[in-house]
């Protein structure tokens, strides 16, 4: 029943609107007849082949770089007594909140050919490193931007591993890298793969970053440029969308294949085993050095953003000329409704996402419903649908629908923005929920049912509580990314009073005098989402303490 309801929602708000748009890909541009000729045009054009190669290259290298950022942060904070773990975990998520436009502007000011770093390098050593030139820039920004997907999912997985496994390995003499490589990492594999697959697909499909860096020889920008240019609505943009969707599903399928036949669930849940280990002093110094270096690097866009929001003029210089609060007063005078709208939209969207995500995860992994995997594929397919396609699809589908209590057509109702955000961010929450359920041993649920609990009660009292960490991780990712999304929203905003924050930043960034104010609004976005993330972490931590071994023993005694 729930499965059918979800399928209907996905069909109505994802498949149907998208089909309405991508149908064009299969139409002969001259006659309108069904054809595959557009696909043969795609593969015979060297521009598209190069774009495909570039997208693939950028996505692969970004996954590698993102892994290098994420693994040390996740491992150190979950396995050792490391002061500031919660702070590090929180800061590690901040890069996900890269407000549109201003993030790229800040990165260019810091790392561009004439950015702060290169101006200093040039002054000191007479060299210039092309961090931001062409594909390099896309890789750098994307891996910084999306590595939290790996961090969040890997951390959740590491917290869920039965530490008795590690304890046994340690008793048998394994430690250091060997322990990590042979025991910990393989056990955390579902989380890592969930994160890595997301990074790959997201980078492969992402449009905003390459466009802002003026890199257009990649697939998603090619699709976007073709779809959105005035006068060009030839099928090629839609062909590329179809190829993006197909390739994303293929990547997902591959990651599932890697997991097949392996059981990663453990009976005892996090906190049940060994306490966190202590580091020797010199190890501690090394770890802190690594952590601080990574944090500095991944937070550099936000440092740049902060400087931009307080700086007066920042042009061809290492730092801004002077500092001021004027941008904040300019921004606050006109933008308070953007902030409340964003909290409302992103919060609702993330809530829908975890509810639907948990339901899909449960249906896929715990029931024998026919076609259940398709729910997963359908929802994940949303990842690959460019925001403009969703936006246009919604306008096309819902503009003629009128509801009695809505002023005007449904397509111009603010709630449609919430739905668009929820659909676009569902894959993030879904991957987190799936990883969480994979780590819950079905035996725990069977035990509950043997003791007479109904299925509903088991789900509610056993499965969902055990998945809490993953569900919260999903909520955070959905919320954080929804709060700065622009591509679908920009098509759907019908009233200025309904506009979210990202739209406000977009507005500011259209004029020279708005750069500082846009950055200030970006800083506000980052602060809001960071606070939300921090409090969610506190909730997770408190939940864990409640399950900690000491308490259990006391209760039993």
């Amino acid at each position, binding site marked *: 029943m729930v499965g059918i309801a979800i399928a209907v929602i996905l069909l*109505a708000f994802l498949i149907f609107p998208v089909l309405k748009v991508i149908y064009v890909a299969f139409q002969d*541009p*001259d006659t309108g007849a069904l054809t595959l000729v*557009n696909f043969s*045009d*795609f593969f*015979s*054009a*060297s*521009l598209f082949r190069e774009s495909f190669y570039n997208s693939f290259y950028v996505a692969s290298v970004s996954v590698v770089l993102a892994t290098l950022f994420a693994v040390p942060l996740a491992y150190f904070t979950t396995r050792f007594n490391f002061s500031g773990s919660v702070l590090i975990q929180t800061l590690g998520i901040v890069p996900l909140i890269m407000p549109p436009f201003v993030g790229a*502007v800040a990165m260019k000011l810091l790392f*561009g*050919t*004439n950015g702060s770093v290169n101006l200093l390098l040039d002054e000191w050593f007479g060299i210039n490193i092309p961090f931001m030139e*062409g594909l390099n820039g896309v890789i750098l920004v994307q891996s910084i931007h999306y590595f939290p997907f790996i961090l969040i999912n890997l951390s959740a997985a590491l917290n869920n591993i039965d530490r008795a496994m590690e304890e046994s390995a340690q008793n048998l003499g394994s430690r250091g890298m060997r322990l990590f490589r042979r025991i910990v990492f393989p056990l955390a594999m579902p989380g890592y793969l969930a994160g890595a697959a997301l990074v790959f697909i997201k980078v492969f499909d992402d449009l905003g970053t390459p466009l802002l860096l*003026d890199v*257009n020889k990649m697939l998603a920008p090619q699709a976007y*440029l073709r779809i*959105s*240019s*005035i*006068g*060009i*609505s*030839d099928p*090629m943009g839609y062909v590329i969308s179809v190829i993006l969707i197909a390739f994303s599903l293929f990547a997902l399928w591959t990651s599932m294949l890697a997991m097949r036949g392996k059981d990663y669930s453990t009976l005892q849940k996090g906190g049940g085993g060994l306490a966190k280990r202590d580091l020797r002093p010199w190890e501690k110094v090394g770890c802190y050095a690594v952590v601080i270096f990574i944090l500095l690097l991944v937070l550099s866009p936000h440092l740049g953003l902060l400087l931009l929001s307080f700086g*007066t*003029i*920042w*042009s*061809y*210089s290492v730092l801004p000329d002077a500092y001021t609060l004027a941008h904040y007063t300019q921004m606050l005078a*006109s933008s308070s409704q953007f902030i409340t709208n964003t909290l409302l939209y992103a919060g609702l969207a993330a809530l829908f996402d975890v509810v639907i995500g948990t339901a899909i995860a449960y249906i896929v992994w715990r029931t024998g419903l026919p076609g259940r995997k398709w729910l997963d594929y359908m929802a994940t397919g949303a990842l690959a649908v460019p925001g403009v396609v969703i936006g246009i699809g919604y*306008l*096309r589908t819902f*503009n*003629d*629908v009128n509801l009695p*209590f*809505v*002023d005007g*057509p*449904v*397509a*111009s*109702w603010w*709630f449609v923005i919430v739905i668009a955000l929820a659909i676009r961010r569902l894959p993030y929450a879904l991957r987190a929920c799936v990883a969480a359920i994979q780590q819950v041993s079905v035996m725990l649920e069977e035990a509950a049912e043997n003791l007479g609990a109904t299925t509903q009660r088991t789900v509610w009292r056993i499965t969902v509580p055990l998945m809490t960490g993953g569900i919260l991780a999903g909520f955070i990712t959905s919320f954080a990314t929804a709060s700065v999304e622009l591509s679908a929203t920009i*098509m759907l905003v019908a*009233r*200025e*009073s*309904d506009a979210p924050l990202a739209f406000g930043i*977009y*507005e500011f*960034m259209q*004029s*020279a*005098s*708005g*750069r500082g104010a846009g950055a200030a609004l970006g800083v506000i976005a980052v602060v809001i989402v960071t606070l939300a993330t921090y409090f969610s972490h506190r909730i997770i931590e408190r939940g864990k303490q409640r399950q900690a071994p000491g308490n259990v023993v006391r209760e039993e005694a």
Partner: protein
Amino acid sequence: MIGHLKNVLGATLVSAAAVLLATPAIAADGKLIVVTSYPPDTTTAFKAAFEKKYPGVKVEMLKKKTSAGIKYLQETSGNNTSDMFWASAPDAFEVLKGDDLLVKYKVKVTGIPEKVGSFPINDPEGYYKGFAASGYGIMWNTRYLKAKKLPVPKEWADLKKPVYFGHVGMSAPSRSGTTHLTVETVLQGEGWAKGWAEWKAIAGNFKTVTERSFGVPDGVNSGQFGIGVVIDFFGLSSKASGFPVDFVYPTVTTLVPANIAIVKNAPNQHNAEAFIEFLLSKEGQELLLNPKIRRLPVNPATYAKAPSDFPNPFKDSSIGSRVKFNLKLSKNRYNVVNSLFDVMITYRIDELRAATKAIQEAEAAMAGKSNAAAAKLIADARAAVNATPITEAEAGEEGYNKIFKKRRKKASVKVTGRQAEVEGKWDDMVKANYARAKELAEKAKSML
């Protein structure tokens, strides 16, 4: 099936909305919804002034970039909620007019001439009105030029010089309607072959082709590149905001009118009419002189109030009058020109840059020497870069243009070739030419 789906959908929405309060309905009268591509500096000033004059009317400025605005109006036309479309590029209005999404309106204000420079101010058929004009020019970052010891460019031809290699930025005509007009103006002024050669010589010096037209002033302001080809208000408002930049009109500049139109089935038609009248009135036109808005009014009388260095296209004949702009020609080959620019420049900028660099180096080595064989090779290399896949006649031919038309043709109209197929062929030719040019220039250099 679809009907059923809609019912289900409606039910879902109703139940969702029962939980969440819907936004309170706003009274339909006394509103004006304007879809616009203009920055807040412009929209807030006009909104405030208009609301002051008509206290009962609440103006909503709905910012969308021009192409998104067009899509939005097209997709929502069945159940339209917008009153006006307010943007620069006349081509955007042509698209909407072609889709029958605008209504005619006869302006009551008097004293506005037919043309600014050689450009007609209003749509001859009366669907959209020009309210201001803007000129194209060159902006540069003073710190950047000083640090790199570059001279200040004054003319378009300066931008071709090897000294500016890798320092220039511009937007693509397919991304920005105003850039399209500039490209088209040069093509009409210089002729097809020479015009494209001119653009490629400038583009060979590009650091980047930006995705948005605002990306150009943004890049110059932050010093990512030193020099940008921009519309005047971008350069002048950047300067007014305190950035170390400056702007100049080259002796031959092009004028771009900025327009406004009433959307068909506008819910607040009378307010929309009032807004047009206000925009063209004395007070409305004077608002344009504000340094953060900075557009050239279409009412010649307004210039009396302008500061002394303010350019006046009605007096100064160098602004926008040299080229007799042929709007029909431009409209006919609109998509072909966009597509050609993207294929030859935007998407092959790396290859074009490499070829340009090789030619510039060969020419530098050639300076002061005489070597007929090398000179021939350099000339051949230039010719290979300059070659265009199609002739002007082909670009203007109706049948050829049909391939690039945005709407699918009826089955009865026979068109041979698909856009992607044609572009693929162009691309193969352009890529091969640039590679050959590079090879020839390198060979010439090795001979010197």
